[in-house]
């Protein structure tokens, strides 16, 4: 299975590879969620959904269902948070 934003742990970062769903809202792209950009998982809401990410300087909350469509490569640098 492909790694997506939904698989990030808190504080973990990744580089966006592609969108596995063509109809992802354009708004996400406009906020800077573009292939090649770094994305960081900042917080997870108490019921595990939605999640709160930082991408390209934009801090946004999205739902898990949408996060599942953003594929990425995790940056493994053992960030300590």
């Amino acid at each position, binding site marked *: 299975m492909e790694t997506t934003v939904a698989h990030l742990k808190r504080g973990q970062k990744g580089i966006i590879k592609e969108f596995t769903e063509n109809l992802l809202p354009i708004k996400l792209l406009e906020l800077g969620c573009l292939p090649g950009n770094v994305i960081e998982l900042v917080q997870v809401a108490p019921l595990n959904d939605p999640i709160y990410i930082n991408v390209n*300087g934009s801090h946004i909350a999205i739902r898990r269902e949408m996060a599942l469509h953003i594929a990425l490569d995790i940056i493994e640098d053992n960030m300590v948070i």
Partner: protein
Amino acid sequence: MSKQINVALIGNPNTGKTSVFNQLTGLNQKVGNYPGITVEKKEGICKLPRGVKAHILDLPGTYSLNTTSLDESVAVELLLNKNDKDHPDVAIVVSDVENLKRNLLLFTQIKDLKIPAILVINMADRMSRKGITIDIELLEKKLNSKIALVSTRKETGINKLRELIADYKNLPKTQNVDISVIAPEYFEKLATTFPKEDVYKLWLVITQDVNFMPLEKTLFKDASSFATKSKSELKRLQQKETILRYQFINGILKETYKVDLNAAKGFRATLDKVLTHKIFGYLIFFLILLTIFQAIYGWSEYPMDLIDGFFASATEWVKDTLPPGVFTNLIAEGILAGIGGIVIFIPQIAFLFLFIALLEETGYMSRVVFLMDRIMRPFGLSGKSVVPLISGTACAIPAVMATRTIENWKERLITILVTPFTTCSARLPVYLIIIALVIPEGSFLGLSYKALTLMSLYLMGFGAAILSAVILNKILKIKSKSFFVVEMPNYKLPLLKNVGYTVLEKTKSFVFGAGKIILAISIILWFLGSNGFSDEFKNAETIVTKRVEQEGFSASSEIYFDTHQDGLDINDPNASDQQKELEERALAQEIAGYKLEHSYMGYMGKAIEPIVRPLGYDWKIGIAVITSFAAREVFVGTLATIYSVGNDEEETIKNRMAAEVNPRTQKPLFNLASGVSLLLFYAFAMQCMSTLAVVKRETNSWKWPAGQLVFMSLFAYIVALIAYQLLK
């Protein structure tokens, strides 16, 4: 009139458009709606150098010209439609210094429409702390535009902005990005088919996701044939366009915008950790809600009592000063009472919006959405619906107004429609007196039956709200954006000026918007209650006086005397004076009761008796149900008048109600069955004209309040009917 130039403020949400707007216009502003829709329209006048005057429009926030909601399409429509009277001569794109990259996306789009544009880089005060440096001159050159570096907080750069606006004729009108490279053939064809039109403008018209309003449809009717490409194909092109724009922007910013990454950034992270924490997050939110609740429920009481007192003495004064007659009564009991009924809500509205403005200004509101989204989602409500629903427990009026913060129209509408189910404080007087009358003594698990009843009524209110939300979510077919992308803005200290403007503006919009309707209905209700066509009504004084002389006082007055004679000392030399005064008052009360019985309102009450009889009510309760449409608490006062007892003497009213016998059954009129039926009726019925007026204002149509009125009343009727028939 001197020539005015049209200026539109446009930009991402939370970049400070409204703050810039407030700086430019001061108190020269007004807020209304765009015709036919519920998007807020903020406009104002600004005086510029060299005697120029500008009409300023604060547009709803948008991330780009690709619209996904009604709010955004308002902005785009205005930019595209040259015939609109507000079509801007110059667009001010407000961006914030920290998110400049993202903000420039919108800026390049507006430039590409060839609308003269000024870039405002706001929040300049944050630059040093964030380690940001910008080469403004170079950036101006690269964007081929003018830039004002502004801080509305420190009030710097505003004059420069004024200069730039006044000088708008010299703004370059060149494009930034040539988007035709994303699909050369397609755009080529477009250009040859519509040689007179701008290609980018055509592209926008073709790709609009949402067309709530007829864009320049007449002009572009044929352009829609160019949507030949499939929807997903167009979407892919839009994605390409976005990427292309970002390439352009990244190229420019590389040379002009520097951030020192070592600058402080811990504040946000720390606060987020606490405020969105699994436990503390909810705890803090709960405490905030509690404070809000306390403010509108508790603190508002003092100013409300003052207002009440003021209008009571004003009414008295009018009656004493003006010559008695219909006109005086109209002023005293119709108009003054109506205005009092509007002004009384101001403290609650002001308090609620003080808090909401603070929550919005600080950036906390987005965290509320983040915390509550998962919980509210199944009900078709927004995370932001929590605040209105909870405030509804104090009063539905400010609560309905508070739904303005919900961006998604469907979620907002559902919240508006279900909020009046929550138990507002006006229901309490009705609940308390009926519970005291019909619910037996005794307790269960240490809680008295009376307390349990009250609690169930609150829970039922919430239950009804949630349940109807679920149903409405299923049946309302409203096109609105279905995805959830919420920006989490930086935490900021609130700008008190902005908070003040919000409170002022909300209060004004209630008083002058919904107030008209409330005043009109109060005057109608007053007229119905104090006029009649029958001889009984016209000769009420003589008839009642004669009856009292011949048959003595009625049973009601006897109860009235009983309650009052306790305090009377027979040996007191003034006793007979006091007795006389009591009798005079009793006579006046009997006349008032007799008049109400024979007024139009009285006949209406009798007319609806067949309808309310199955619920266990008689015509007197029927009248009270009608009059309490003004506000639920009027129920008690009306019964007091009908039963000819003093208006503010709770004990007497209660004793009198307890003594009332249903002529049909010869049992007490207020028994467990009819009492529970009344409680349920008041729990669910839309018995509040002010709420209807506010819903009308907030939804911009009579359709929704009318639906609410019919549905809630019907539902209340059925529930009350079932309860009475089961219990009797």
